[in-house]
């Protein structure tokens, strides 16, 4: 009999191939996601003359450089080159590709779960830090660098040191107008941008259990913004229901076997974590960030904090620098801050539920600043169009685009201009992240939609639902 184990420890134990130098573990990788930014790894593998060990375990799609307009013929030669290089690399190595025109194309972290590639208990890696997203299904998933991508391609394994475990327990009922994004921004504000470094976070508690699958992905997506390479949520009926009948998931007799395996994964009741943090969901408010670290989240009813209260000199200097960059002063109210544009999208908040929430806020209203809505995948786009969400956005004056990472990282040219203030549903408010000199305020899709129709950071609870009612169609 095994001693009590956490979910993390169970998945880890299940994937140990060997113990190597210095006691490090060679861990097997079940699933590998690749994208148009993975060309460095393909190149180094090619130069070393090494083959891809198990092409069937890898899935590729363009997302970072994917244009969100004019895809039939990509005008920008640099973007075209990145998309075509991925196509050539996938063809050469026999890796399955969902090309730009494919119905299954999208942000890797949106299509993984959507296609059933991501499953409970698997190890999944990708050359992108937001790979933590997939932990929402109980997969041990983490971002890796280009050298590690090449290593996984060549060996289907990765050398890993076991991390510590952090139990983040979120109990209570989420108030109206408060969403998964607000939970994770509150968690990061509480434990800090390196509160989870060296740890794998398992999110638990009644508030997490009651979240939909997509909302759980939003939470795990930003585990990395608290420093944790992986975030996990134990699989349950919500997970199984979500996964049933996904194209790359188990079917028939395999489904029953898979289910039996998945049910054994949740942390044992008396499993020990190295650390614990608790959040009361019922006390949460809609959040927005003021600074240039995801830890800079405050309730929308709050004010910009004063760096003078920071005791550490480097920390004080950094927060002062953040205020200068953001063009803010201590004590300023978050609510009412004028914004110049809005971005609704990214691997954090671009799924169908996110779009529904945003559409309900803008319906019957009018965007007063430029606003971009970028679905996370082509399937999300089609689903939204079938529900008429695209029409709601367009009628409200928001732009409706094709799927990709877009303005979260701006690599495809969807950028925020210097000095412009953007209300964004993405995951990083770093200096220059959305464009050189761009000022990012992170928030939920509901809050970003409210900002679009008011031109200010607005408490979505005060704005209320659509003047036309909640039903769309």
């Amino acid at each position, binding site marked *: 009999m095994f001693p009590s184990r956490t979910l993390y420890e169970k998945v880890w134990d299940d994937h140990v191939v060997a113990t190597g130098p210095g006691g490090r573990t060679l861990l097997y990788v079940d699933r590998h996601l690749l994208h148009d930014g993975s060309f460095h790894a393909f190149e180094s593998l090619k130069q070393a003359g090494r083959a891809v060990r198990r092409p069937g375990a890898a899935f590729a799609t363009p997302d970072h450089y994917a244009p969100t307009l004019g895809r039939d013929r990509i005008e920008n030669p640099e973007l075209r080159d990145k998309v075509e290089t991925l196509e050539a690399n996938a063809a050469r190595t026999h890796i399955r590709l969902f090309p730009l025109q494919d119905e299954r194309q999208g942000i890797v972290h949106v299509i993984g779960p959507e296609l059933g590639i991501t499953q409970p208990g698997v190890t999944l890696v990708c050359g992108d830090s937001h790979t933590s997203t997939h932990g929402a299904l109980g997969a041990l998933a983490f971002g890796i660098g280009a*050298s590690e991508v090449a290593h996984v391609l060549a060996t289907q394994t990765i050398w890993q040191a076991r991390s510590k475990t952090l139990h983040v327990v979120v109990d209570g009922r989420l108030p109206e107008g408060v969403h998964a994004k607000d939970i994770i921004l509150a968690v990061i504000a509480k434990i800090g941008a*390196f509160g989870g470094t060296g740890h794998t976070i398992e999110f638990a508690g009644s508030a997490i259990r009651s979240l939909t699958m997509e909302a759980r992905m939003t939470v795990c997506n930003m585990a990395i913004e608290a420093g944790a390479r992986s975030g996990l949520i134990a699989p349950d009926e919500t997970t199984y229901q979500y996964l049933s009948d996904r194209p790359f998931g188990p079917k028939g007799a395999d489904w029953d076997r898979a289910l039996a395996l998945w049910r054994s994964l949740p942390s044992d009741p008396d499993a020990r974590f190295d650390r614990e943090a608790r959040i009361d969901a019922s006390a949460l408010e809609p959040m927005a960030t003021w600074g240039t670290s995801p830890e800079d989240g405050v309730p929308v009813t709050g004010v910009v904090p004063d760096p003078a209260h920071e005791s550490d000199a480097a920390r004080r200097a950094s927060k002062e620098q953040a205020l200068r960059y953001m063009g803010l002063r201590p004590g300023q109210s978050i609510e009412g801050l004028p914004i110049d544009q809005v971005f609704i999208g990214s691997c954090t908040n671009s799924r169908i539920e996110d779009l529904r929430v945003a559409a309900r806020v803008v319906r019957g209203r009018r965007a007063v600043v430029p606003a971009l809505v970028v679905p996370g995948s082509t399937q999300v786009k089609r689903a939204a169009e079938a529900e008429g969400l695209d029409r709601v956005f367009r009628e409200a004056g928001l732009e409706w685009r094709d799927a990709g990472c877009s303005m979260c990282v701006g690599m495809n040219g969807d950028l925020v201009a210097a000095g412009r203030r953007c209300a964004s549903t993405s995951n990083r408010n770093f200096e220059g992240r959305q464009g050189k000199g761009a000022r990012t305020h992170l928030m939920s899709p509901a809050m970003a939609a409210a900002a679009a129709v008011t031109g200010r950071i607005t408490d979505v609870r005060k704005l209320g639902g659509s003047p036309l009612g909640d039903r769309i169609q």
Partner: protein
Amino acid sequence: MEAFTTLTARAVPLDLVNVDTDRIIPARFLRRPRSEGYGQFLFHDLREGDAAFPLDRPEYAGAKVLVAAENFGCGSSREGAVWALKGAGFRAWIAPSFGDIFSENSAKNGALAIVLPRDRVAAIRDQLHASPGLELTIDLLTQTVQLPDGNTDRFEVDPFRKECLLAGIDEIGLTLRYEDAIREYEQRRAAQAPWL
């Protein structure tokens, strides 16, 4: 991979917490092939707006060690951040904590990410500010950082990383020696979860 054994070099202080890899190298430079060099883009936008940026001060010219603050290299997994630091001549970085992925990426490129207690790192930065151009000696074998003031700090390093760095091991080559174990695992896994 380039080995790392000992290094005696000038060190430069950077007094900012949460320096993310977007700041180390902005995303727009990542589309370039690595062979074209990343060093010239190190801290590109940060330097542009700050004439007194430490890396551009002549006293710190030729520095190979960066002494930073908490959570250096957080954020994006872009290995370009390490390539930019290495391209600009850096071989080691010292901080109270690093982004986990950045720290791993450093080791894969023959660079050493050294964790020391926050107070010690702050004291080293203070010394470097007070006497710019000071040199440190890092010895990976004995896991020590020697300062000009005579102080020696011992640091912890993951034994696997230490071994790989000291020998300059090609990790893929190492792993391929485990081919039998990998194949055996794959058979076991296929029996357990044939749908994967």
